[in-house]
């Protein structure tokens, strides 16, 4: 993995001086830059309102940057959003999906809208089994699903799209401990397939377990950006607390 990063591969995801000021004046992102290589897992940590969701939304062109740009495989997302979106899968937090569709029907719709119309029933079953959704639930309407079950469907949808980059916004928020654990394995296997993963989370321990790179965000800035090799042996939670208070202290002083 680390060898890959050292080579001169083009980054798959790039944030270049990304700045977002919302219409009400809130500066949600303040000139951040980072990049994610193929096969790299990039994790964003940070308090509520730090700007994680805003970053992901900029990659999906749900909002336009005030300054700077987000790129996927070199494509500037707000210049050519459709081409950019072909190259990215998305798992958002708290998706309800279509309650009147079964799990398989949801997968079928989102796969086809994502440009994959070749899938068979078996493919859908395999994808749902891969995210550990019990088989008896595959043909039940989502209306009766728990939050975690829906989240699993959402992840299956992202896998089926087969895009080279995957954006995940707090994907583990609804998962039980076992499902959270399985999910980490799933991400690792996706990484082995060469996917680039950009994920936001509040779960420091899981972040440490899988991340190749960790960014700690606060107030729209990246206040720490470190490779996992640099973090080996240190207590990430303590580091996180240090950075947060330190940053706040700095801000108060300045």
């Amino acid at each position: 993995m680390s060898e890959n990063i050292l080579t001169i591969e083009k980054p798959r995801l790039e944030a270049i001086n990304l700045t977002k000021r919302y219409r009400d004046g809130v500066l949600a992102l303040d000139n951040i830059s980072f990049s994610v290589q193929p096969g790299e897992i990039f994790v964003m940590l940070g308090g509520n309102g730090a700007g994680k969701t805003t970053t992901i939304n900029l990659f999906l062109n749900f909002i336009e940057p005030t300054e700077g740009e987000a790129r996927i495989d070199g494509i500037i997302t707000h210049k050519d959003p459709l081409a950019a979106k072909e190259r990215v899968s998305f798992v958002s937090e708290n998706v309800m999906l279509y309650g009147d569709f079964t799990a398989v029907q949801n997968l079928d719709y989102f796969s086809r809208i994502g440009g994959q119309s070749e899938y068979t029933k078996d493919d859908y079953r395999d994808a749902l089994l891969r995210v550990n959704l019990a088989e008896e639930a595959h043909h039940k309407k989502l209306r009766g699903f728990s939050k975690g079950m829906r989240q699993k469907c959402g992840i299956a949808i992202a896998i089926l799209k087969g895009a080279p980059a995957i954006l995940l916004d707090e994907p583990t928020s609804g998962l039980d401990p076992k499902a959270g654990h399985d999910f980490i394995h799933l991400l690792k296997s996706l990484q082995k397939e060469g996917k680039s993963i950009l994920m936001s989370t509040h779960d420091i321990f899981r972040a440490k377990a899988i991340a190749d790179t960790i960014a700690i965000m606060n107030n729209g800035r990246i206040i720490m950006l470190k490779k996992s090799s640099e973090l080996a042996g240190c207590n990430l939670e303590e580091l996180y607390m240090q950075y947060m208070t330190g940053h706040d202290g700095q801000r108060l002083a300045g």
Partner: protein
Amino acid sequence: MLKVIVEKEIREILGSVKFVITFGACAVLILLSFYIGAANHKANVEQYNAAKAENTRQMEGLTSWMSLEQHRIFLPPQPLAALVTGSSNDVGRTIDVHRRSELAAVDSKFNEDPIYAVFRFLDLTFIFQIVLSLFAIMLGYDAICGEKERGTLRLSFANPVPRATYILGKLLGSFITLVTALLIAILLSCLILPLLGVSLTGDEWIRLAAIIGTGLLYFGVFLTLSVFVSSRTHRTSSAFLALLVIWVVSVLIVPRSATLLAGRAVDVPSIDELAAQKTSFSRQLWTEYRDAMGSFSAPKDIDPHDMMTHFNKFMDSLSTEREAKMKVFSDRLNEDRFNRQVVQQKFAFNVARVSPAASMNLAAANLAGTSIGLKNRFHETAMEYRKVFGDFIREKTGMNLGGGMIYVEINDDGEKPDPIDPSELPVYTYSPKPLMASFSAAFVDIGILALFNLIFFVGAFVSFIRYDVR
């Protein structure tokens, strides 16, 4: 891509509990309105036949056409009027055709059977007006903001989907599904008509088809409106609330207040005022002519039989003259009132047309031949019939009826006179406005409905292009 979205929309609607329930209720009400219409029509036909038979029976005892001072004609019941009542229940269905005095239609359905005034609303247009609009709102209010709430909009737009394609697919998918479902329900309900023995002519089927088309166009207005509102709001609750307010205002309030407003804006003298003016003028004429009547002098040495003829001739000429003056006067009054009424109606209709419900009602009534013009048409055809009837009586008796004449039947031989044959009487037939005329009368309102569709469609489209899908 469009196909994927349209297909998903169709599947989602058909699979939803909301659709099953609201459509079920809708279908039952549509079926009910056809059933009630058919049953009402059959009852009307029976009543009509009985009244006609009774009228003929009353003539049976008569021995001279002279004694037939008036003849009663009836507005025949139309099957479409039972489905689209329009003004038909308020229009008198009977006219006593006199030779001279003014004709007035009496005995409207509401008049005879006040319960109908209460149940007037349960016809097809009422069901369309209320049920189709609510159905459209129920299925359209969460089209966009509902998907946003569920997060599916975000997820869809994480894919390379053009926004225009998406909104087009949604509108097309829901329109196709719902209109097909409604058409099936309506066409099946149409079967009730032949099943209950109500037969429509080809002309009437065309009209019915156009009425159904108008109803679907009206449905389209509310569907596109709902999607439009849905793409201007971010929460389903606010979309629903906004649509409910719009519904109450446009379906319930605007059409009614338009009438009120028109009443204020344009002054039309009441029938009573007119009658009072006519009576006083007629009294004035009488006093003038009483003196003239006194001046009758018969030529001398004339036998009494001729004397009578002379007197009648004299009286006839006098009354003809008086009638002519009276006619000029009352025609002027009537025309003035009629013109004002037309202005008032136009005003009311144009104000009401802000509401698609009013347009739908007006178009349907025009197509069914039960628009506000029904009354005039009945009256006009009755006037034409009066001429025919008057000519017939003159031919039979050699004299005009009415006008204060005296006739004496001289029965020289003591023979029993033959009874008259009522079947010799000219037959009154009512024919509704011709098809093309009805269509052109409905054209404006159908055009307005189409325009509303277009406006809201474009509105939904443009709003969605800028919609925040997060």
